[in-house]
């Protein structure tokens, strides 16, 4: 069942810039330009696209922060901007580049205050807090005022704060921005477990495609306010014309090998690079190689999603 339904969503901003002396130029920026999609309960969806594509604007409309210029949207059956306060109890929101916590209060006080604001029953709060403190390693930070936390620590605090009331839907706008590799990996594991154990529907934006590979089964690509792709990762690779590569070490230096369905892209002494469409199987290629040539070693390189996206953008 779709918990998020979006039809023909549009949002424009009127920007006034100083042009000339007294005249001010009035310009309309189309941030989101007729986007439609549906997200089922329990899905984990990655929302990607270049800077200024309209990701944050879409998330802000889905949370009720921004009122759409036109189009229809429903989250858990509610129109976000009209029933914002009611919806707030059912969603968790994390903005990577700003904190939703009270800057001058210690983390512990922020959590306690949020629990009361959201009417989280006392024992529910206690167990949730204990779980989140353990999973996000917050114990040493609880008595520190938020303004003294590092970026990664604050992010963990923000994520815990967004989950204290057990929201069935979680939005994360660039949650891994500025985190080191280990923190990113831990956060991904945490989100994956959250989805697996509680069935939380997750929608996240990111510029780190490893996030997508690790936690999202579905990807939506937005560019200049339009949804240019919506499907699973492998389908994205196919659409983008992505290729995988077999790197083969032969016994001797040879002319480029001939294997059906592949093209040799590079030769370096006895080592050759054969590329083939990302969605086709490597097995027949490997066996054809082994049957016709003396193979010493062999490995397969997966496509980098960056390349896929670049191809997708280039294709328009």
């Amino acid at each position: 069942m779709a918990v998020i339904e979006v039809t023909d969503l549009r949002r424009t901003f009127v920007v006034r810039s100083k042009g000339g002396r007294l005249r001010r130029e009035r310009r309309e920026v189309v941030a989101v330009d007729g986007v439609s999609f549906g997200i089922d309960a329990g899905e984990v969806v990655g929302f990607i696209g270049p800077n200024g594509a309209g990701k944050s604007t879409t998330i802000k409309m889905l949370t009720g922060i921004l009122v759409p210029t036109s189009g229809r949207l429903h989250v858990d059956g509610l129109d976000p901007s009209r029933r914002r306060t009611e919806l707030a109890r059912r969603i968790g929101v994390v903005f990577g580049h700003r904190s939703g916590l009270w800057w001058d209060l210690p983390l512990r006080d922020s959590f306690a205050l949020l629990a009361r604001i959201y009417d989280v029953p006392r024992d529910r709060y206690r167990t949730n807090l204990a779980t989140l403190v353990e999973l996000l390693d917050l114990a040493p930070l609880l008595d520190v005022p938020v303004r003294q936390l590092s970026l990664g620590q604050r992010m963990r605090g923000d994520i815990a704060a967004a989950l204290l009331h057990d929201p069935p839907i979680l939005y994360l706008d660039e949650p891994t921005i500025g985190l080191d590799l280990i923190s990113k990996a831990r956060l991904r594991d945490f989100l994956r477990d959250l989805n697996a154990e509680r069935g939380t529907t997750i929608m996240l934006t990111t510029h780190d495609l490893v996030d997508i590979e690790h936690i999202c089964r579905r990807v939506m690509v937005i560019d200049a306010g339009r949804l240019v792709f919506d499907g699973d990762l492998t389908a994205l690779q196919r659409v983008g014309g992505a290729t995988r590569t077999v790197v083969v070490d032969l016994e001797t230096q040879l002319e480029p090998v001939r294997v059906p369905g592949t093209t040799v892209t590079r030769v370096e002494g006895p080592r050759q690079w054969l590329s083939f469409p990302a969605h086709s199987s490597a097995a027949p290629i490997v066996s054809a190689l082994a049957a016709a040539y003396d193979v010493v070693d062999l490995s397969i390189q997966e496509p980098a999603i960056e390349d896929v996206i670049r191809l997708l953008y280039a294709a328009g």
Partner: protein
Amino acid sequence: MASSLRAYGLIAGAWVRASMTYRASFVAMTVGQALITLIDFAAIAIMFSHIDELGGFTLGEVALLYGMSGFALGAADLLMGNTEQLGRRVRDGSFDAMLVRPVAPLVQIAADQFALRRVGRITQAVAVLGWGLAASNIDWSVPKVLVLLATLVSGSVIFCAVFVLGGAFQVLAGDATEVMNAFTYGGNTLTQFPLSIYPAEVVRSVTFIVPLAFVNWYPALYLLDVEDPFGLPSALQYASPVAAVLAAAAAAVAWRAGVRRYRSTGS
């Protein structure tokens, strides 16, 4: 409504508890505030050492006006003064976070950084008001007591409405603190003196546009049994609660419109 009040209490309580950690500085700040505002009134008292009357009002009567206006602004500032921070909140994006919590954002911004030390100003205003009531020759009656009490509440509501109106502008413009201060603190300074010293246009605008004259001027005319020097209907002298309701309604409409037109920031 009840849940909003409860949320206000919760958030304000968290701030009071946090500030109580530094009890000594809290006491110092409160006393300091009261002293600063006392000096403020002393300036007016000194003025009266050269004159006997200002716009036809004695020092005691001016104290009455000053106290009523000071109390109203003080109470509104205690409850709503933090809406001043809205411009900053909009610019740094933290207003977004308030919009995704299950509490009206106005309640959250108003209760944010709730500071009990602002009680200092109210204390001073009550002291000046008390002295003013004793020093001016009032022919007390039950209706006069009721008008006085209703005015203190209505005046606070009127200043709250001005704060909210300013907040709505800040949500739209991302900034307008100065404009807002002009109306709140500026309005307070204006109404500290008898309106009879101003031109009629000023009086008309603080009656019909920004109804600050209802914070103290009209009810004071009634309490003191003074004829309106501008000849406006005497019904205005009991109309403070009506003015407060109208101001609050206008502020609520503006606030809602502001939030619906909120643009957030581009980052």
